[in-house]
């Protein structure tokens, strides 16, 4: 008996997904989670970066491939998701200079520059109130 033996099933679901060993994938994901949690305890920024974000990409890949079955989805799905990711990158590239730089060609952020100079002059006071109003 399969899904398509039933009357109330939407047409078009003729193909069955190949189901792998999901518990094994879940176990790998849990091990990766433990590694990402352990990363910061090494006290090295590069190790933390790799164990946190490197592993996040691996985990996302494993979920997308094995649980969402994107590898067997029609090419349309890859185009759709890829386009949206491109939009994300475009947004980042377009907005990042405004957010991350204090000055550019024919523009400057006087408040940011003043706050930076203040932080250099009085580091203790700057650290105490850091982030409260830094835009």
């Amino acid at each position, binding site marked *: 008996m399969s899904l398509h033996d039933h009357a109330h099933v939407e047409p078009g679901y003729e193909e069955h997904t190949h189901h792998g060993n999901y518990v094994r994938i*879940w176990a790998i994901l849990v091990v990766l989670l433990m590694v990402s949690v352990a990363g910061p305890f090494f006290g090295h920024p590069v190790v933390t970066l790799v164990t946190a974000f490197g592993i996040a990409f691996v985990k996302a890949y494993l979920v997308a491939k094995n649980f969402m079955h994107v590898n067997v989805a029609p090419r349309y799905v890859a185009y759709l998701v890829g386009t949206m990711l491109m939009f994300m990158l475009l947004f980042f590239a377009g907005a990042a200079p405004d957010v991350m730089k204090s000055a550019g060609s024919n523009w400057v952020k006087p408040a940011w520059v003043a706050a930076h100079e203040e932080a250099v002059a009085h580091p203790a006071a700057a650290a105490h109130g850091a982030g409260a109003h830094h835009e």
Partner: protein
Amino acid sequence: MSASPIATTRTAAGMPTGRLAVWWVIASEIVIFGGLLGSYIMFRLSHDAFGEHAAHTNMWIGAVNTLVLLTSSLFAVLGHKAADAGDGRKAAKFLYLTAAGGLLFASIKFGYEWPAEIHHGFTISSNTFWSFYYTAAGIHAAHVIGGVIIMLIIAPRAKRNLDLHRVELIGLYWHFVDVVWIFLFPLLYIAK
């Protein structure tokens, strides 16, 4: 020959309309969460203070919630497998387990994590980091709750072997919610 409604026929994209619709939802969500996370990364990279504020988030709670979501994703895909085999009762059982995972996630967040942070004076208006924190985690939690509600609607019909294809569709959505959390976890809880 009886005519099916347009919404139940296979699309030119090579997949059933229901699955196509869920992928479009996911594509839209990528823009929503992508914009939010992209903005956070810009601020995080250019403001060291973000790291100092992130030091106040509870990594262990974040890790437990990650484990809860990963496990609920496992239940969701096992439900899909059961639905493919035509076992509606088993598919419904896994849907209920997935929903329970979502409820546990929300309970930990709203019942313990956020009250503790607010008690320590970290509110959405404290500074830009906490604004991002509550906005990103809040929008994500809203998606979790939405997914739980949909699963609780689908499960009773699945149990009677009706509309079993919907088990796969809600599973797709749920895995995406899981993927979003996979990126939120290091950003908000680990990178300090």
